[in-house]
């Protein structure tokens, strides 16, 4: 998946299942999130998708994990490298650091 056109946000139950799998799985080994102050209703979308991607791996859903990871990277690139169409200094670099297509 190279863009967001093929990405669909999982349902609420699936997101909650993935986050629960992340907390019961990876968080037991790498607890870098503060769970008492973690609110899934207020978390940023790249972080939420990354958590869901790791949780999907613990749910043995590899394809979903890859899609969530790609979408998370795209959103994260949009956060880290915000570009505008008229920015001449970042020409050729689009969302997620991908090469921008020219018409």
């Amino acid at each position, binding site marked *: 998946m190279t863009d967001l056109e093929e990405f669909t946000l999982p349902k609420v139950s699936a997101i909650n299942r993935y986050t629960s799998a992340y907390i019961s799985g990876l968080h037991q080994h790498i607890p870098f999130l503060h*769970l008492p102050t973690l609110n899934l209703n207020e978390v940023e979308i790249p972080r939420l998708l990354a958590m869901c991607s790791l949780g999907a791996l613990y749910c043995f859903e590899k394809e979903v994990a890859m899609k969530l990871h790609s979408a998370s990277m*795209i959103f994260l690139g949009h956060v880290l490298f915000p570009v505008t169409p008229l920015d001449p200094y970042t020409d050729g670099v689009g*969302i997620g650091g991908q090469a921008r297509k020219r018409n």
Partner: protein
Amino acid sequence: MYSKGTKGDGVKGTKRIIPHDLTFPSSSSTTLLTKTTAAPTLTPTQTFTDHYQFSSHTTNGLTSGPSTASSTFGPSPPAADTTSILDPQLLSLQPSPQHMLPIPTPPSLAIKPASHSPDSLPGPSPFPYHDFTFFDELNYSLGILNPTDDFQSQIDQLMNSVVPSGAATGAYPSTPKPDVDASLFRIPASNEVPIKGNHSAPPPTKVTVRKLNEEAWEHLQRQVKSAEAVFVFLC
């Protein structure tokens, strides 16, 4: 890489002229030399004084009683020859080739070569190799695996013979016995439910994370749609 000129100069530079009168000494001259050189007179070695002489009332050669010189740390007395304190018995224990040679073992301790045939062993054979009736006797003595029965009945018979309590049978009571050891080591039947209650599994996390609700999910969905629209616009 060496050039020709350099090589020639090097050869010329190393050329030496050997005088003709320089010859190797013959055997006669050698004998003369040996005769002329006086044999050095060996000076008598110093007498060995064992400073760490072992006695019955000492420990590791050191006296356990009070000593006059050990109370203060002064400069050590000048030792003219440190080799004089070496134990001559240790010096005599140098490795010699005779230590490396194999020690001949007496014939009573010699290991006999292994034979590949059981017939070569002395005495009667412990196992009848050619008598296959042993297996028939074994099957008769066991008597649990009848080939005419089905697989499940054979397994049940085998488990009943192994497990003394007869727990694998379907007649096992559903309520656990008060004996803890028997309940732990028994084989559960197929119609039993797993044990509920405290067990050795890791405890669940006490922290409860607030789940994602529908309103927040719709907000995320709008973000995804807007990002997708921006992405399409950029492309």
